[in-house]
């Protein structure tokens, strides 16, 4: 990826932001609750996409297992909600346990009675799991395709585990959250959904600034160094294992937050969050938006999911073709993604091709606009 970026006109950037913020503020009042709920879900997915961008776009690790951390976050939130609204059920434990004849709460549910523990668990547990998996894999210098395959295998391990354990976490049915209560309100109610939309919007922005902060400065440079030439980073005296583990667990934590937000807005968490296609889809959001751009990840997640719901409503069969085509198109024709293309030389090259802009002829061909841009 070239570092040369066109500096946009400040006014364009500013007005873009104003429109975006205005839309976000206006959304809860303009949109019907169904659409608002969809938008809220897609915004929460953009947080996991940010994580994917951090590990893939910046560090070059293609994880096909982000669904693990996404679902773990979702399960943490759902367990808390289930357990706090279980007072009317027999034995004071969530309803589904009665179906399998379980009378005592499994031990690992106990801490989730506490809202504070849950608040931390949502992002710390996925981050720890990610850190552990990452450390075991990176320690052996497993990378590239092997890393992707191993993350996919771990995804299947978790999927099979959660899918098979009815007596512990309701197996394949998952945990429902929309009929549970939080602060005396039904989670699935309209007013709560509005609040969740706000929380999501704020957290997306917070996560974006956090990600920008992470990739800034020396730490971010090392990440990019690992992506571009890992042996050189190692020979320079850094230990890539530590950096890779840290960034992988950061991405895991982000995925956990995203999963919790998605769960409360979709009303259920189930092992379906850990299927192979869903985790690969996360990668394509980032690829289409533009990897290594952060903003592209957010936009990609929201727009592709919106397009998916619109297309699936109109022509259910064609979405698979479109999605498959997107995968192929984006890696062969648009490797930097849409945002990367706009920020790079894309528009100028396009205009030049149609003769609308004069070619700058130099010999030997020099890169025009070779400003050192900060990588955003």
């Amino acid at each position, binding site marked *: 990826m070239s570092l040369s970026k066109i500096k946009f006109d400040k006014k364009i950037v500013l007005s873009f932001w104003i429109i975006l913020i205005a839309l976000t503020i206006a959304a809860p009042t303009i949109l019907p609750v169904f659409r608002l709920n969809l938008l809220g879900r897609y915004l929460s997915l953009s947080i996991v996409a940010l994580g994917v961008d951090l590990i893939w776009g910046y560090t070059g690790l*293609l994880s096909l297992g982000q669904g693990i951390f996404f679902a773990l976050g979702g399960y943490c939130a759902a367990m808390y909600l289930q357990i706090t609204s279980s007072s009317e059920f027999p034995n004071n434990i969530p309803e589904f346990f009665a179906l399998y004849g379980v009378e005592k709460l499994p031990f690992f549910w106990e801490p989730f009675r506490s809202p504070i523990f849950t608040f931390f668990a949502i992002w710390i547990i996925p981050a720890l799991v990610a850190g552990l998996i990452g450390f075991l894999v990176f320690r052996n210098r497993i990378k590239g395709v092997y890393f992707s*395959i*191993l993350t996919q295998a771990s995804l299947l391990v978790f999927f099979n585990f959660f899918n098979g354990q009815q007596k512990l976490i309701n197996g394949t049915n998952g945990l429902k959250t929309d009929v549970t209560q939080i602060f005396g309100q039904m989670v699935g109610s309209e007013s709560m959904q509005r609040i969740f939309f706000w929380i999501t919007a704020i957290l997306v922005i917070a996560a974006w600034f956090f990600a920008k902060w992470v990739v800034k400065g020396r730490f971010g440079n090392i990440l990019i160094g690992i992506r571009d030439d890992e042996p050189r980073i190692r020979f320079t005296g850094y230990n890539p294992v530590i950096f890779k583990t840290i960034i992988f667990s950061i991405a895991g934590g982000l995925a956990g937050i995203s999963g919790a937000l998605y769960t409360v807005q979709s009303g259920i968490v189930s092992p379906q969050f850990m299927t192979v296609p869903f985790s690969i889809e996360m990668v394509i959001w980032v690829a289409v938006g533009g990897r290594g751009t952060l903003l592209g990840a957010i936009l990609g997640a929201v727009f592709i999911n919106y397009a998916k719901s619109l297309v699936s409503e109109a022509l259910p069969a064609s979405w698979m073709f479109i999605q498959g085509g997107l995968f192929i198109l984006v890696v062969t024709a648009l490797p930097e993604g849409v945002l990367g293309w706009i920020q790079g030389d894309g528009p100028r090259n396009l205009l030049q091709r149609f003769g609308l802009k004069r070619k700058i002829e130099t010999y030997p061909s020099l890169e025009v606009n070779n400003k050192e841009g900060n990588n955003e």
Partner: protein
Amino acid sequence: MELLLDSLFNGVAIGSVLLVAALGLAIVFGLMGVINLAHGELMMLGAYTTYVTQLIFKLPILKPFYNSYIIVSIFLAFIVSGVVGILLEKTIIRKLYGSPLETLLATWGVSLILQQFVRSVPLAYGTGLVISLLIGLFLPTMFPSKIKESINFKYFKFSSWIFAALTGVLTGSLISSSVSKLSRASARNVDVTAPSWMRGQVEIIGTAFPKTRLMIIVITLISVIAITLFLNQSAWGMRIRAVTQNRQMSDCLGISTEKVDIITFGIGSGLAGVAGVAVSLLGSVGPNVGGNYIVGCFMVVVLGGVGNLLGTVLASFGIGIMTDLIGAGRLLSIWPDMPLPLSNTINFFATTSMARVMIFALIVIFLQFKPTGLFPQKGRMVEN
């Protein structure tokens, strides 16, 4: 003893499906460093080929030969999947050499398209499309070299594609008019029924073995032997091995790496088709059938190491036997009076899905000690 034999047989049966499925993947991965996520869908195409062949053999003309359809379908499946694989290589994968992660994503896209394709296109026309691809890709290579070198060759190529398209449409409509089951698109699963000589069981040393399982083992055995002979005895096999070991050096020595890539990818995909025939004998065939096997194949490739068939063979039988031992809870019946905590643990993992959990966990642990698989490639290449 009988129990052990039974367990061993089951393990070998599971392992041989894995092996025939992973064989193609391993060869392609060894040569090009490309993990083909569409491999499962190529298997699916092979399985559907078996189904189509079966229906065609029910036509009055071919009815006398019905019992041999399974043998024919093995060859047809090899050709169908191989042709689709070659098309894939020529159009997409060739552009992505040197960027394996991008290849991963692109092949995933291909797999989605293939899945939806069998759902929404009638199988008869799908067959026609494959036939026209086959003719279009191979007819130009059959012209005498005098024509191939002439400046007007592109017209020959063009006209052969037109001929191919016409033939494809004709066969497609012919099949759809004669076999009504193939003329409508359907997303439902279909069933392949084994011919009568393959039903039932065979008794060996007092234990009964289902014939379909034995057939799969035979298919696997033949595939492995054929591919070993091809790689070790033929000229192209030698070239493939050379490119696997050192691509640049082989290129410098005059081996056409482009041709080697096409041939390897074609054979790898064709083997996926053969695996599809095996899979179709085990259960019903649907658009998602490949997904059930694909991760197992990846594990075999990761465990077996790159560029070594022996590793692939050992890894798949190892995984197969372990799956059976853990999944069916056989350890408990072999050693009935083991301590309670251990037996509880084994019971916990004694389902098919939990056995998978256990095996993947074991593989990850194994890779802690041997990160490059059972048989790593020796050499002094710097990493990357």
